[in-house]
């Protein structure tokens, strides 16, 4: 890597941590109901929404009622996205007259966007009308993110409250997340992105005249639109000359801004943020990459502030950042070292100021190696899942990093809200393990951690791996699962494992060679996404309710302090050990064996 590469990484981390601090404090004030002056004018809108919906904002909810409100809201949203896709041909704002989406794909996409996964089995520009993108997908981008943030705030209240029934009001947390955090940030980011060239228009596709006409072969069709075959049963090809280029456009910037900020990741176009109209310049790339981790990082500070000890949040942020930097270095190194094949074929693969070098298959020239590998690390550390390079074409080791980051239960930054509440489950396990070692009842933030909390935390930690490993195991033994593979050998297994890791942890990125838009994958991955999101939320809210009912025990000499470097290491250890024990056998069959094969090719 060149010196410039280190500079870009340093700049990114500095910007992230510097912005996370003020944003975290701002969010703490929003959730505490002490609105900063800058957004106080939106207050009437907030109270108006409550009045319209018949909500009493001061009314607290038990954990069960909070969970039911969360589920009812998510279920209705899911149904709305499904209906919009199934009816889009007959609805307005469909300038390309795109057909209604098939039931299995519509189910998969509805679950995907409601659960903040944003796995995309479909190609955006060839499947979804402007209306579906706006009223269906874009709305879910906001409210699935806001739902995750609401659950986190409820869990934090579990630690703060003493001997209480209530963990807050879901509707209030939802509205405040949307109105005061997601909307203003998205608006700012969207306008900055347009300035770089991200499109934002309701016009249909643009048609331009090619400088050099393109000749290509395509299958000849008979009068009924069926492919003609010759005597040998091979399709008859005909040569076609194209003199026009059709450029898909749409209201892209508004969607890209929230897809990044809300750790959604569902792109407007098929290739997501690799598309030049979704991510046109290195600066737009920097801003989008910053937006991936911004809110998850800032929420750590918010958490610390709300529990009355910012150091608690800093410790968690430190643990997340250390894992991110460590695994990011591996990914960048692997991609820059590249594929021995390219050197064998006599290509120039050295990095310099005039060429990015390395493994450039599936990467864009403006991003090169460093920004592609950094993005891959950030988007899988967070449960974002947007891509600016094709993970399927990464070197085996370079592709192992994003896959494993997803498999670590999406707690290294993770989804907005969901990443931190997932990490708090690991914190509970970490203090529990430490408590066993020193023979005392574990405590975290003044609350006794007892059998119920540890059981629920174990459920929350083990549900995603269950969905991943069971799903992948089924897919590799049935024909419908194996038929979708693009790449032969160990890489084909990696494609399937990655798909279930992504769905079973609500990430949404893919080894996109896998043809996942089939009834089998739409159904299986849809189920994995449902389990990972909703089973987990119930367990997490149950802990919140149980903690809220407890007294606060004052810290004593036997209390393990949870803001020290020792605890940071203990927390990282819990995450890594669980992730390694669960997934190393599976990874050995995919990327590990492929890396060894690749090094054997000389």
């Amino acid at each position, binding site marked *: 890597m060149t010196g410039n590469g280190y500079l870009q990484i340093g700049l990114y981390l500095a910007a992230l941590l510097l912005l996370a601090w003020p944003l975290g404090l701002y969010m703490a004030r929003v959730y505490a109901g002490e609105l900063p002056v800058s957004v106080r004018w939106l207050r009437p809108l907030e109270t108006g929404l409550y009045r319209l919906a018949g909500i009493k904002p001061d009314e607290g909810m038990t954990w069960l009622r909070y969970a039911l409100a969360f589920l009812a*809201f998510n279920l209705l949203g899911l149904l709305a996205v499904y209906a919009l896709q199934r009816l889009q041909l007959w609805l307005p704002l469909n300038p390309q007259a795109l057909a209604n989406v098939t039931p299995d794909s519509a189910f998969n996409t509805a679950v995907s966007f409601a659960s903040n996964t944003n796995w995309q089995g479909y190609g955006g520009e060839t499947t979804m009308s402007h209306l579906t993108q706006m009223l269906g997908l874009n709305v879910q981008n906001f409210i699935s993110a806001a739902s995750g943030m609401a659950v986190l705030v409820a869990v934090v209240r579990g630690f703060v409250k003493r001997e209480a029934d209530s963990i807050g009001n879901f509707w209030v947390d939802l509205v405040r997340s949307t109105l005061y955090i997601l909307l203003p940030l998205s608006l700012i980011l969207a306008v900055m992105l347009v300035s770089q060239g991200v499109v*934002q228009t309701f016009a249909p596709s643009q048609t331009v005249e090619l400088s050099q006409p393109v000749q290509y072969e395509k299958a000849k069709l008979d009068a009924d639109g069926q492919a003609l075959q010759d005597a040998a049963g091979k399709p008859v090809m005909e040569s076609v000359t194209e003199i026009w280029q059709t450029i898909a456009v749409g209201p892209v910037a*508004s969607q890209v801004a929230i897809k990044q900020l809300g750790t959604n990741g569902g792109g407007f176009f098929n290739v997501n943020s*690799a598309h*030049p109209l979704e991510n046109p310049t290195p600066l737009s790339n920097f801003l989008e990459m910053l937006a991936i981790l911004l809110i998850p990082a800032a929420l750590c500070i918010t958490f610390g502030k709300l529990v009355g000890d910012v150091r608690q949040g800093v410790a968690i942020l430190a643990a997340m950042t250390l894992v991110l930097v460590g695994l990011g270095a591996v990914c960048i190194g692997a991609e820059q070292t590249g594929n021995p094949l390219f050197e064998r074929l006599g290509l120039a693969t050295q990095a*310099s100021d005039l060429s990015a070098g390395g493994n450039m298959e599936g*990467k864009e020239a403006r991003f090169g190696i460093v920004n592609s590998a950094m993005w891959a690390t950030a988007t899988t550390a967070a449960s974002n899942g947007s891509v600016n390079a094709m993970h*399927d074409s990464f070197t085996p080791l370079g592709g192992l990093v994003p896959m494993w980051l997803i498999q670590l239960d999406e707690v290294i930054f993770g989804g907005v809200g969901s990443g931190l509440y997932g990490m708090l489950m690991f914190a509970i396990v970490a203090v529990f393990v430490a408590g066993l070692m020193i023979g005392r009842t574990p405590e975290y933030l003044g609350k006794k951690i007892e059998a119920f909390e540890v059981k629920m935390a174990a459920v929350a930690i083990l549900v995603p791996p269950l969905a991943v490993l069971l799903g992948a195991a089924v897919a590799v033994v049935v024909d419908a699962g194996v038929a979708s593979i*693009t790449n032969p050998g160990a890489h084909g297994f990696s494609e399937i494992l990655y798909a279930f890791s992504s769905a079973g942890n609500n990430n949404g990125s893919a080894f996109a060679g896998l043809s996942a838009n089939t009834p089998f994958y739409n159904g299986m991955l849809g189920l994995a996404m449902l389990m990972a999101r909703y089973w987990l939320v119930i367990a997490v809210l149950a802990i919140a309710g149980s903690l809220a009912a407890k007294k606060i025990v004052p810290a004593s000499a036997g209390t393990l302090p949870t803001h020290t470097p020792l605890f940071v290491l203990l927390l990282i250890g819990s995450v890594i050990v669980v992730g390694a024990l669960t997934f190393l056998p599976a990874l050995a069959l995919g990327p590990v064996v492929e890396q060894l094969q690749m090094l054997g090719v000389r």
Partner: protein
Amino acid sequence: MLKELKPAFVMLMALTVLTGILYPLLVTGIAQALFADAANGSLIEQNGKLAGSALIGQHFSDPKYFWGRPSATGPMPYNAAASSGSNLGPLNPALEAAVQARIAALKAADPSQIELIPVDLVTASASGLDPHISPAAAAWQAPRIARQRGLPLDVVGGLVAQHTQGRQLGVLGEARVNVLQLNLALDAMRR
């Protein structure tokens, strides 16, 4: 759960209006007012007709043009209505075959060029629409363009330099050359 259905329904409708209608309309209004050209696709108009987008590459295979990144879109390369990468894994024999064919085509178009080919010139881009190549990839092709067009090499080199963007703000991303704009400038020179 039934008790929560009414607020759930009203909230969904209200937030749909707010985030699904008002928000994109507001962004569109601001975008079209401040950055109309960028918001509409950074289109290039030449001689009264649309010749492309500054952000979307086009397919070039004629030796007198600079060639861009290989594109994996279907059914034709650089199909900007259906973006796609190759998604070929690093050990896939199809990747080796594709790269070998591209090397052969480049060498056939300029047998006298003996420098190593920069890797980005023979590997498919992520989007299939990448408008850029590395400056090294442009330099590798410059002698061929000069010969094909009967231009001095330093004139072609000067034109490449004009269409080379350094790292943004001096730091971000990679240096790159916009292939379509460079080729349009070459064609304009002939007139």
